[in-house]
């Protein structure tokens, strides 16, 4: 692990960010209805080889952010604004044909449910080679041995036999490994993983996370990890962004963020995790309300109705994004002081 850290430290300052998302806005518009800001000015950078987490409850805009970067949102009913610079090119203003050429080659994505994300009527081998045929101009015959290597690389036993299997013949963990193999087939420099372990059971989750970590380290691929599971983030991410109602409310490296959460929402997320060392019978501390009980960001803090620390100010003035030295960022009028926090 220490070796990889030093490798990253060398890589990041020289080459600048691989992906730089600036003020990304996604608005759902529907005729006759008020438009809805699903993503409301999200900015973050991903450096080569870095793993960045996007964390938040369901509905906070994390999946929409990733789909917008990939250009996979339907054109109708969605308005995407802002800039997502990948390697000096703005992905969001790229014609759809050129974006299609980049998907799978420069940026790939892993989805939540491995069974439904595989085509049920096509053997695994064909699905893996399809990507290589598409982007590397290989014939299926040329691509098959490479597909076999890939399956072996992602830890699928007996890869030669598995190439001929259909998705339903594989176990859940195998399927996710096969999907990872497909997304890595053209060695993309950026991988977006949208809740890659949510549909798997716990032991398999750990295996898949270990695999992702290993692949990221070995290939130097940057990873955007989208999850609601702070445990996943804790083990994997270099930098963590906490999203609430379409805006980033707190950012920090994982040690800083978990050790000293400053935003009450981050604190709430952390204290709603069950702890093994908690006394028996102790109640969990969920955040009251749901993500739909929010105020518009335009004239308040969206989290104010659910926030135990809310002041009058929070319901009247929009908190601004303040970047502190060391990469910490915070959007809060009344942040928690370190001594209030009972973590670690």
């Amino acid at each position, binding site marked *: 692990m220490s070796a990889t850290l030093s490798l990253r430290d060398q890589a990041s300052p020289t080459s600048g960010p691989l992906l730089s998302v600036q003020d990304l806005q996604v608005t759902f518009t529907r005729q006759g209805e008020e438009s809805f800001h699903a993503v409301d000015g999200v900015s973050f950078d991903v450096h080569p080889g870095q793993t960045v987490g996007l964390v938040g409850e369901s509905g906070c805009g994390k999946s929409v952010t990733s789909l917008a970067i990939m250009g*996979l949102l339907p054109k109708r009913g969605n308005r995407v604004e802002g800039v997502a610079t990948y390697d000096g090119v703005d992905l969001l203003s790229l014609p759809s044909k050129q974006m299609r050429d980049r998907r*799978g080659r420069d940026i*790939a*994505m892993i989805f939540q449910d491995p069974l*439904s994300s595989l085509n049920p009527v096509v053997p695994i081998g064909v699905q893996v080679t399809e990507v290589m045929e598409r982007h590397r101009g290989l014939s299926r015959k040329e691509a098959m041995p490479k597909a076999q290597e890939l399956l072996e690389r992602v830890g699928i036993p007996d890869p030669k036999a598995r190439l001929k299997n259909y998705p339903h013949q594989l176990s859940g963990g195998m399927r996710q490994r096969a*999907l990872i193999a*497909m997304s890595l087939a053209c060695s993309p420099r950026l991988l977006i993983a949208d809740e890659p372990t949510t549909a798997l059971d716990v032991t398999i989750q750990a295996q898949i996370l270990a695999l992702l970590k290993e692949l990221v380290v070995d290939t130097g691929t940057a990873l955007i990890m989208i999850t609601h599971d702070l445990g996943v983030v804790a083990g994997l991410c270099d930098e963590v962004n906490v999203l609430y109602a379409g805006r980033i409310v707190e950012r920090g490296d994982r040690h800083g963020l978990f050790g000293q959460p400053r935003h009450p929402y981050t604190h709430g997320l952390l204290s709603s995790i069950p702890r093994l060392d908690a006394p028996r019978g102790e109640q969990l501390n969920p955040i009251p309300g749901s993500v739909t009980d929010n105020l518009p960001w335009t004239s308040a803090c969206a989290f104010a109705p659910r926030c135990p620390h809310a002041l009058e100010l929070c319901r009247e003035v929009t908190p601004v994004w303040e970047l502190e030295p060391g990469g910490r960022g915070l959007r809060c009028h009344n942040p928690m002081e370190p001594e209030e926090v009972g973590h670690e």
Partner: protein
Amino acid sequence: MGVDAYADRRKDRIDALAARSVDDSPGVSLIASAWRRLRRNPVFLLGLAITVSFVVLAVVSPWLAPYDPAANPLIDQVRPQSNPIPGPEPGFPLGADDRGRDLLSRLLVGSRQTLIVGVLATVFGLIGGLVLGTLAGALGGWVDSVVMRLVDVMLSIPSLLLAFTIGALAARPSQWTLIVAIATIQVPVFARLLRGTMLAQRHSDHVLAARALGVKPQAIVFRHMLPNAMGPVIVQATLVLAVAIIDAAALSFLGLGNPDDRQPEWGQMLGASQQYIYDHPHLAIYPALCIIVVALGFTLMGESLREALDPKSRR
């Protein structure tokens, strides 16, 4: 005795459990598990038996029929005034028709026309429906709107009426008139069905995953959407076969089919029997029975296939 019954019950129970555990295991495809259930379904087996024997009979009928269906060996016995229809006699188990032609031979050979018209009409209807349904479901937008309005218009006209109209428009009626007319009325049914399943596929996770890998639109439609959307359409096709056979009989009964009665066809035989229906009802009963049994065979097979493949009706 009691022990045997107990052992049998236990064996059945184990078999049932084994069948279920195999059903649930990921190693068995949908088609394999559907077949496992179909194999024990008497309704399906009856339908399959009828259908298979009908197809075999239709294929071998020219060699099986005792006489040429166009020849009239009993013409000497036809007396227009006293005895227009020669009854059964040795060598002619079902008797003859009003022109002294062997009824059994005509029924046997008539199955060919029924099979050809039914199958071709279904196939052409399926092809038309596939083209329209794929266009509408894959492209969406205004193509979808235009195609679906066209389909709605066609569906708003009673299908048999539409078929009669198309049949009546033909300058020279033949079996191709029947095929075209019946295929046309099936197109909107298939198109609508396929469009629905294609739309569901378009929003499925694996299509999104394929797009995320940069797969081109044509490949997405033909490799990722269409094969997954075809299941219900194939099942519908087996049901349409039965309808096509009945419709073909109805059209040729009304004289919209092949006018040349040297080539027998069940609906046309039924039509010709009308004037003798009171004195010689068997002339109508035999072809009608053939039509009913064959249509029943296809329907039983199609229905049980639909049930077996429908995830909602699975145990």
